[in-house]
């Protein structure tokens, strides 16, 4: 296991939501609760090729352990060997690459590429031969790409202009060059012939120029018979709508020009066809290069993530257990940071199912999220934010209760919605699953809720699931025969006095007194609770809190 060097963290930012791999193991509810969208955004590609590569990516699931280990080790190696500046620069270069796959697809299906397509491809080839990309490719396994880039660049080089554009240059084809020379001659001959006629008409009409196409001749300017060069299209009382009537010489020049233009068009299309065929032949290698470049961007994005958040390569387990030290749920840590609070890293050693107890606002849900976040990292081949970790690949990550309560348009109570969701989970689940259960059945009678939770834990243990259930209910671990973890606990919260504190101050005070660490308790230990002290700290009427203490 290797700890990566830490890199100064950027300011917290919202990551754009990015689509997950098609075989992602998490349910929608779990994804939201454990911060999968944040994670996908944090490792999102910026370039077109990277985005294409992302759509092809598959999440690692049980059975993919060897591939996951290879990827994690590869990411770790890049993150260890390269500094962030190099990685950022490389990523920017890859992101700036144009995407030649559309024109390539057209060429491979027999299409003749347009000049715009050829511009794309020549820009792509030139970018690949740029020193930074060459250096990046040299350090990767994609050693075939530079040779391909050179071949493509050589093919399109005659069209590359000094300004970085592309033109179907004469240098592509001698016949094209000759056709263009001839066309230019014919154009000049026609211009001269037409110009001669137009000047005579302009002189007659008393105007500087006679426009191409229709023009108006005011009758007040018509003196004597109209010259033969004017054809009248329509007569009105005060004007004539006319056009230039070409004489025989002009018509011959026009016909010659049209022929010459046609010849140029033929030769231009012939050159495009030749280039398109050559590119189509390079298609499989070119496509492989695009895929490789996209994957390289994803790889670099993961390495940057690993550096930025001080991640480690986890041991990939082949059992329903997990252990980690000083792990962080990064989206939660960023949220706390935004509110001026610190996230306490969590350590855990878990086999099968376990329960988490602790005071309100003590971090039970955070423990669930951290376990889920780390498992999602491994499924995506991303090193995990922890000092050390060992996690399995799973077929499913599910979240039940808490943040995931979604009563269906009021038809179901919170409890009803939980039960429907649980029924779904149990009906289709197969393979190894991570179950994160947040205060399940807390909205029904404590006695029956407790019984349900015990039965559920027993059922999940039999199914090779692993995970955590956060609860306030006592005696569960012994009855369900699962491990019991507890949040470190809160120090004594001194009475706030008669005046309630502002909410932010109260929260800071509560956090200051809290030990958020997760510790394993011996069998039979009772869960800690300090709901009344917390209610007082949060400003509930002191008399009411005092009366509650009497009742206790």
């Amino acid at each position, binding site marked *: 296991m290797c700890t990566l060097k830490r890199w100064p963290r950027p300011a917290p930012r919202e990551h754009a939501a990015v689509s997950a791999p098609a075989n992602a193991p998490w349910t929608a509810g779990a994804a939201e609760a454990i911060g999968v969208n944040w994670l996908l955004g944090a490792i999102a590609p910026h370039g077109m090729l990277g985005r294409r590569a992302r759509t092809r990516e598959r999440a690692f699931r049980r059975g993919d352990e060897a591939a996951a280990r290879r990827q994690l080790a590869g990411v770790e190696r890049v993150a260890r060997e390269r500094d962030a500046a190099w990685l950022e620069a490389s990523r920017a270069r890859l992101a700036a690459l144009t995407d030649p796959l559309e024109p390539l697809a057209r060429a491979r299906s027999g299409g003749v590429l*347009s*000049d*715009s397509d*050829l*511009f794309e491809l020549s820009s792509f080839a030139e970018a690949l031969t740029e020193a930074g990309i060459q250096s990046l490719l040299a350090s990767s396994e994609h050693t075939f790409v530079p040779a391909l880039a050179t071949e493509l660049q050589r093919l399109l080089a005659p069209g590359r*202009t000094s*300004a*970085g*554009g*592309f*033109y*179907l240059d004469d240098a592509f084809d001698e016949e094209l060059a000759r056709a*263009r020379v001839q*066309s*230019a001659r014919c*154009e000049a001959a026609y211009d001269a012939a037409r110009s001669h006629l137009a000047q005579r008409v302009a002189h007659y*009409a*008393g*105007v*500087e*120029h006679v*426009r*191409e*196409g*229709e*023009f*108006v*001749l*005011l009758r007040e300017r018509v003196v004597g018979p109209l010259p033969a060069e004017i054809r009248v299209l329509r007569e*009105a*009382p*005060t*004007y004539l*709508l006319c056009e230039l009537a070409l004489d025989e010489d002009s018509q011959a020049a026009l016909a010659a020009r049209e022929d010459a*233009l046609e010849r*140029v*068009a033929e030769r*231009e*299309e012939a050159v*495009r066809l030749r280039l398109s065929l050559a590119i189509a032949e390079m298609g499989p290698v070119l496509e492989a290069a695009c895929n490789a470049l996209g994957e390289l961007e994803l790889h670099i994005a993961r390495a940057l993530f690993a550096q930025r958040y001080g991640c480690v390569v986890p041991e990939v387990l082949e059992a329903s257990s997990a252990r980690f030290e000083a792990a962080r749920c990064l989206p939660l840590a960023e949220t706390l940071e935004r509110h001026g609070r610190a996230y306490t890293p969590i350590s855990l050693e878990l086999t099968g199912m376990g329960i988490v107890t602790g005071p309100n606002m003590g971090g039970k849900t955070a423990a669930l999220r951290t376990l889920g976040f780390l498992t999602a990292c491994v499924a995506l081949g991303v090193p995990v934010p922890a000092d050390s970790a060992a996690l399995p690949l799973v077929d499913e990550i599910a979240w039940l209760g808490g943040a995931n309560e979604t009563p269906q348009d009021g038809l179901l109570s919170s409890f009803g919605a939980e039960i429907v969701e649980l029924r779904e989970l149990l009906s289709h689940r197969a393979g190894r699953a991570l179950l994160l259960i947040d205060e399940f059945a807390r909205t029904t009678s404590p006695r029956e809720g407790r019984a349900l939770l015990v039965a559920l834990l027993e059922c999940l243990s039999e199914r090779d699931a692993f995970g955590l259930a956060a609860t306030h209910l006592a005696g569960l671990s012994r009855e369900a025969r699962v491990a019991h973890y507890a949040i470190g606990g809160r120090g004594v919260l001194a009475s706030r006095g008669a005046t309630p504190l502002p909410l932010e101050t109260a929260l800071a005070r509560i956090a200051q007194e809290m030990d958020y660490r997760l510790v394993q308790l011996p069998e039979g230990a009772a869960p800690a609770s300090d709901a009344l002290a917390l209610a007082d700290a949060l400003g509930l009427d002191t008399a009411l809190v005092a009366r509650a203490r009497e009742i206790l």
Partner: protein
Amino acid sequence: MVHGVGEALLARARAAGCVSIAVIGTSKNAGKSVVTAELCEALRRAQVPFGLCSIGRDGEATDAIDRAPKPRFYLRSGALIATAATLLPRSPALEIVGHTGETSALGPIVLGAVRAPGYFEIAGPPQADALRRVARLLGARTPFVLIDGAVDRIAALRDGSDANVVAVGAAGAPAIGRALDDVAALVGRLGLQPADPEREAVRVAGALGAVAAAEFARAGERRQIVVRDGTRLTFGGRTFLELAARLDLRCERRLRPIACTVAPSGGGRFFEPLTFARAVAQRTGLPTYDVYAQTLAEAGAA
């Protein structure tokens, strides 16, 4: 007689300190593209390289909506166009200079330098902001930029420093009176006077619609009503003329209408060319050109 309508319009634009002209029209087939083609020819004759772009699609052989024949632009070396890659002709080949990063309804818009004479279709972005970015790209590479406008897209003139040429044609109005109202209203919107800082004003953020303006008029509002510029007034034609007569409409930033042009025939209607041009000049106070007849009418002239 004028020494070329294109040359005259360019001279007026330069005199106003502008290095770009946006041609806009009161209706379809008002002659916008004919004027733009005339300006292209004038720039070519003067050997001034120029950029050409369009609001939406224009310059097609037939109108995309009513299939009426329309001029494509015959361009020669020295022209730089911004158009949809899908509209590039197979021949003559252009030099593809780069991407604009903008998209039209027909796909991505590229910059192409004309290397050999030919007919070209121009399709630009429909959004005002995107058009301004494309115009800036062209302006960075050429000394003069032409923008072929579209009907009711004067929003695209927002934040531009173009000279505006307003085209009006017989095709867009059932009678000459209606055409005159339309052009007077459009020029009136573009030519709103700047607000007087010494006088009380109601400043309107964003657009001012006909309903809100009518409400001001009904309430007898006497203060200046100030919009950013004339493109923020969303009503034209007779509505504008009536409301502008009752309200003191002002702007923070003046646009630059420099001239009008007339297309006396179109849509099966024919207005007498000289009468039409003189009436337009009289109503708008702007020099008015007839590209077909190569004439100029000026306000106050007989």
